[in-house]
């Protein structure tokens, strides 16, 4: 009776309920803020310098758009290739492949620039209403390595609100307003643009100032998306991409080839090819975790690609990639496809430009990854 009377006093009841609200806000808030902790990237023996993206656009300093740029310089002079991982933080094959390069490759000739988290802001939060897990893990040489899984665009806490219509600069092409936070619709970017445009501009500045010869942007796509398991190449990069496609097929890696559409603006392969002297390509692999048909988004789905609904969709002929109960594993297939592609691009570029070779040693071996995943190539 006393408790009931006590509860009926609105002031005391309000205090208890507010205390409960404070607990909920604290627990969920801490979990949200914890997503801002970046995943570890170990500096491998081939890394000669580490820059920051803000070195190329100072206003990004002390923002969540700033990120590491790993520089691997060879003993001999040669060409420069830039690998972009993490343009979309929900496409893990990109940033995992980039990390593997940073932690293993030693350059013999030329220079390899790697940005594992090109849109670092995207890693600080998932996309609203997607219920994605904030992280996933992979077996490493001695234990487990964890990686962040984020959102497709810059976090809404870094850039908000979205306009109704996004006007791409400088083409003026109109896109859906939510694309304003998609870094792969923001190139070439501008220094005084919105947050995402500034990040894209900094990457473009790297290409210009460092005289990058070849840009490879690593992505994934949902299995129902037509551009999948594909290289998308700017027209100037197409001869190189043709050679790479053939060589990848000879190595048993199925890969398609698409021309960069000239009427779709803002993408890295279009704009970096148009606005810089670099050859620009993009690579896609299948990722069920970002698809619309998927079931629950779990770390297991991210790593294995196994999903019952996608198997059903494949049987109904709705997908642009084959799908069975084995899924599409992140390590043995998706990251491997990216790593083999990058290796072949470096070889093909060196053959076409013998005076500017790009050659690497200690490159992750296809047979090893197919057999036992990335365990050997992820430092403890």
């Amino acid at each position: 009776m006393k408790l009931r009377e006590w509860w009926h006093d609105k002031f005391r009841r309000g205090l208890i309920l507010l205390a409960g609200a404070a607990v909920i806000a604290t627990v969920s808030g801490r979990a949200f803020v914890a997503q801002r902790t970046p995943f570890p990237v170990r500096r491998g023996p081939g890394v000669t310098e580490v820059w920051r993206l803000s070195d190329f656009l100072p206003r990004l300093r002390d923002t969540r758009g700033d990120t590491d740029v790993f520089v691997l310089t060879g003993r001999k002079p040669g060409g420069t290739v830039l690998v972009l991982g993490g343009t979309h933080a929900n496409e893990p094959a990109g940033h995992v492949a980039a990390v593997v390069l940073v932690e293993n490759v030693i350059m013999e000739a030329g220079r390899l620039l790697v940005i594992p988290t090109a849109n670092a802001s995207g890693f600080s939060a998932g996309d609203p209403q997607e219920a994605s897990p904030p992280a996933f893990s992979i077996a490493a040489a001695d234990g487990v390595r964890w990686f962040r899984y984020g959102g497709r665009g810059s976090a809404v806490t870094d850039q908000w609100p979205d306009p109704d219509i996004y006007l791409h600069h400088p083409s003026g092409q109109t896109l859906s307003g939510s694309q304003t936070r998609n870094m792969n619709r923001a190139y070439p970017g501008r220094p005084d643009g919105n947050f995402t445009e500034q990040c894209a501009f900094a990457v473009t500045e790297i290409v210009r100032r460092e005289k990058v010869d070849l840009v490879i942007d690593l992505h994934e796509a949902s299995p129902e998306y037509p551009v999948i398991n594909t290289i998308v190449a700017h027209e100037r990069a197409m001869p190189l991409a043709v050679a790479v496609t053939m060589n990848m097929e000879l190595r048993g890696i199925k890969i398609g080839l698409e021309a960069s559409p000239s009427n779709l603006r803002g993408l890295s392969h279009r704009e970096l090819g148009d606005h810089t002297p670099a050859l620009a390509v993009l690579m896609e692999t299948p990722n069920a975790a970002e698809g619309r048909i998927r079931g629950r988004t779990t770390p297991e789905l991210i790593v294995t690609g196994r999903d019952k609904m996608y198997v059903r969709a494949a049987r109904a002929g709705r997908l642009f990639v084959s799908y069975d109960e084995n899924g599409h594993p992140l390590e043995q297939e998706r990251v491997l496809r990216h790593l083999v592609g990058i290796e072949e691009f470096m070889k093909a570029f060196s053959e076409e430009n013998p005076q500017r070779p790009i050659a690497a040693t200690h490159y992750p071996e296809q047979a090893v990854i197919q057999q036992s995943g990335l365990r050997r190539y992820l430092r403890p």
Partner: protein
Amino acid sequence: MIQQLILIAYQLIVLLVLAATVRAALRRENSSTFQIMAVVLAIPLALRLLMIK
């Protein structure tokens, strides 16, 4: 400088609204339903305050 002032102003506004919500949740004159709504509203306001950089 202006950006920092805008940030401070925004934080103060959210804090003000949160304070009003907490007051509403504690007032004996308000109905129980209103009290519950105020408590529920306090959660996203507190989160917003936490996430403003």
